[in-house]
């Protein structure tokens, strides 16, 4: 289920995300004060390249990381193997990638 390449990809994406998660946690604790509103979020994020880059990187890393994690769980729990497992992992990765990048673009660029 996990070969050396997938193992390394899993760890590399984890290391990329480590500082991003710290930032995300800090941001949540900071921004939740007094509730959230669409206007308040967009005022901070709209047209901001740094936020787009921060969360764009996050989305790419998490899509790969989550797809590999789910691949292992599905393989062990449901005994899926081979091509079926490959297709499912890639499909989930692509789905997260598209949905995530669309969300990032929605709040930063468009």
């Amino acid at each position, binding site marked *: 289920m996990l070969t050396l390449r997938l193992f390394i990809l899993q760890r590399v994406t984890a290391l990329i995300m480590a500082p991003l*998660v710290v930032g995300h946690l800090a941001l*949540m604790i900071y921004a939740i004060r007094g509730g959230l509103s*669409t206007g308040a979020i967009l005022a901070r994020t709209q047209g901001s390249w740094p936020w787009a880059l921060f969360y764009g990187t996050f989305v790419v890393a998490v899509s790969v990381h989550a797809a590999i*994690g789910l691949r292992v769980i599905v393989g062990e729990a449901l005994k899926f193997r081979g091509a079926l497992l490959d297709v499912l992992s890639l499909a989930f990765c692509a789905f997260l990638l598209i949905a*995530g990048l669309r*969300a990032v673009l*929605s709040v930063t660029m468009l």
Partner: protein
Amino acid sequence: MMRPHRSHPLWLAYILHRLSGLALAIFLPAHFYVLSLALTAPNDLDGFLHWADKPLVKVAEFGLVFLLAVHFFGGLRLMAFELLAWSKDQKTLAAASVAFSFLIAASFLLRAI
């Protein structure tokens, strides 16, 4: 009932890491969908954020913050064990991950309410 071969700290750390990862992976599409509303239906997003001010939703968010934090600390512990050969005190480190995650999630909750 817990199977006897599973009732030890590192197995519990493993299942916590697996379940938190699974929960986060299931949560992500919903998270992305809600944020996309900013583009497609800003009024719906505002409606959602207003709904999210309810106390019960805040508690659920506390849970999500905890899951993210515990997956983060648990992952760092695993990588330190595998790649930096920190083989000592793994049980203590696993317990510390849970404690720190509660601390972070509680800080979030206290500011949210």
